């Protein structure tokens, strides 16, 4: 359980986190979303006692991080920036971390195997690829077998194999009943792994909700595309009841507010011919962008979309 209460963080003039409050509940994956510069990494560093809040309180399992007697057993973290000496081998890095808590050497070997670094454990961490570095960071986070794991953009810069690996790992951690708190820019990534969502922008809370709710909102906005030679008749038959019908071309209708099943049933009842009945896909990323729209700090000129939108069938 992580409790953030009215936390504000100022770096000089810059307000990085602004009166933020939320709770990360145990036993589920909570996604932490927000555009660049929203304050995700700052919040995570405050949870881990690395940065001190200007105001407010941050508690991990009821205590300030610095008051935890054995922090590595309570919460494991993968930070955005690397936190490993490049001149030291993976094995020695983990050994030194383990020794601070009296964790036996056998556990070091265990986590090395867990993340698949056995073959390179004796090599300098500085020679590691991005993916290997992430694996080592995750090995560090899991060293103390903590109930809570927090990861700052764990898939950033990883290849598809690495992303798949992290996704599988996170699901495994959650399935074991651990609390997982992970940040990302990508709603689509979150929809695959998270159950709960905390969305922030410019340091402020925008939404504290479930993935399901965001998906529901997104699908409400979705349209069904209908191609029919009887466009006018169908339009009349569908009219009313909160149904909105638009036409982008002759013989093509975009219907909102009615699922494809109902449209098909109405057409059958009225004896209208349909050439196509396609539920359009509502993008989760669109729903997310609408939520954060005002809070994006660094707009690109054309409001460019994040790649890899997860489309979902309405």
């Amino acid at each position, binding site marked *: 359980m992580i409790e953030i209460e009215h936390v504000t963080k100022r770096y000089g003039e810059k307000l990085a986190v602004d009166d933020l409050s939320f709770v990360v509940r145990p036993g589920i994956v909570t996604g932490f979303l927000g555009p660049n510069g929203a304050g995700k990494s700052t919040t995570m560093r405050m949870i881990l006692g690395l940065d001190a809040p200007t105001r407010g309180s941050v508690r991990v399992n009821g205590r300030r991080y610095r008051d935890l007697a*054995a922090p590595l057993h309570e919460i494991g973290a993968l930070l955005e920036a690397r936190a490993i000496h490049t001149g030291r081998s993976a094995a020695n890095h983990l050994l030194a971390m383990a020794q601070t808590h009296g964790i036996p050497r056998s556990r070091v070997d265990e986590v090395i195997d867990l993340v698949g670094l056995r073959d390179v454990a004796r090599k300098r961490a500085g020679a590691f690829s991005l993916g290997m570095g992430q694996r080592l960071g995750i090995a560090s986070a899991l060293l103390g077998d903590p109930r809570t794991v927090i990861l700052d953009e764990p898939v950033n810069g990883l290849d598809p194999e690495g992303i798949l690996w992290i996704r599988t790992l996170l699901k495994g951690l959650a399935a074991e009943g651990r609390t997982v708190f992970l940040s990302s820019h990508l709603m689509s990534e979150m929809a695959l792994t998270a159950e709960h969502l905390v969305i922030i922008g410019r340091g402020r809370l925008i939404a504290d909700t479930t993935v399901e709710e965001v998906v529901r909102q997104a699908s409400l906005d979705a349209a069904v595309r209908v191609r029919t030679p009887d466009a006018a008749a169908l339009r009349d038959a569908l009219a009313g009841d909160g149904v909105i019908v638009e036409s982008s071309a002759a013989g093509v209708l975009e219907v909102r507010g009615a699922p494809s099943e109902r449209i098909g049933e109405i057409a059958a009842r009225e004896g209208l011919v349909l050439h196509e009945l396609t539920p359009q896909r509502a993008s989760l990323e669109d729903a997310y962008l609408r939520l954060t729209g005002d809070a994006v700090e660094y707009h690109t000129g054309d409001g460019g979309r994040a790649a890899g939108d997860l489309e979902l069938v309405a």
Partner: protein
Amino acid sequence: MSAPALSPAVPGRVAGPAAAGGGVTQARVVRAEWTKLWSLRSTRWSLLAAVVAQAALGIIVAAAQMSRWGSLSPHDRATFDSIDVGVGGYHLSQLAIGVLGVLVISGEYSTGMIRSSLMAAPRRLPVLWAKLGVYAAVTFVLMLVSALVSFFGVQAIVSGHHLQHGLGDPHALRAVVGTALFLTVLGALALGLGALLRNTAGGIAAFVGLMFVLPGVVALLPGSIGDSISPYLPINAAFTVATSTFDGPHHLATWTGFAVFCGYAAIVVLAAAVQLVRRDA
């Protein structure tokens, strides 16, 4: 979903050590810092360089002097002191010990390792004390052994000209142990500078500036002012404990000088400690 070749699909909940191992203690942090110190190649090389410098410089100088003893001026012969030559390797080893002292902590800031260190020991000060303790202990032992090797080596070389001293002679043991003490405190001072500045280049510049550049600057001051400040400069205060004897009033007394040097180191370390606790990592 099939897992990539390198990795298990799901991390099995390993019957971990969970709270069983207990928490963070100063002793455990010391053990971790010991591992950290020796697991970097740069550290091992720097320490080797310090050992070789401390052990060999005096011996080389003594051998060179003895080989041309006959051609030395009477004054040079009269002022030859086999104790000073015996421990004189510190003129070289101090650089290695100082630079490594800075690196022990600045290297953690430059690589981000400090965040891991502080996450594991969030009270923070234990990390600084452990680093200081481990580095001081390693420096003292290595430099004491190296100084002894050099001391006895030099005595053996100069015995042909009956210039040798025993450890029991006045100032001899004190100079040998003093050399190790001086280098130990110098290492701590450098570590403190590294912690204070959180930057390798800055830390080394501050160390070199304070120890070796400042005396030159002070020498530019008008004679009377320079003379009254000079004995209190870190390096001049520090040398007193590592030198057999001083002529003239331009130096503090042996242990007074060393105490002043320790004072500088304490101030720097204290400032670093305050900052470590107060500032964001």
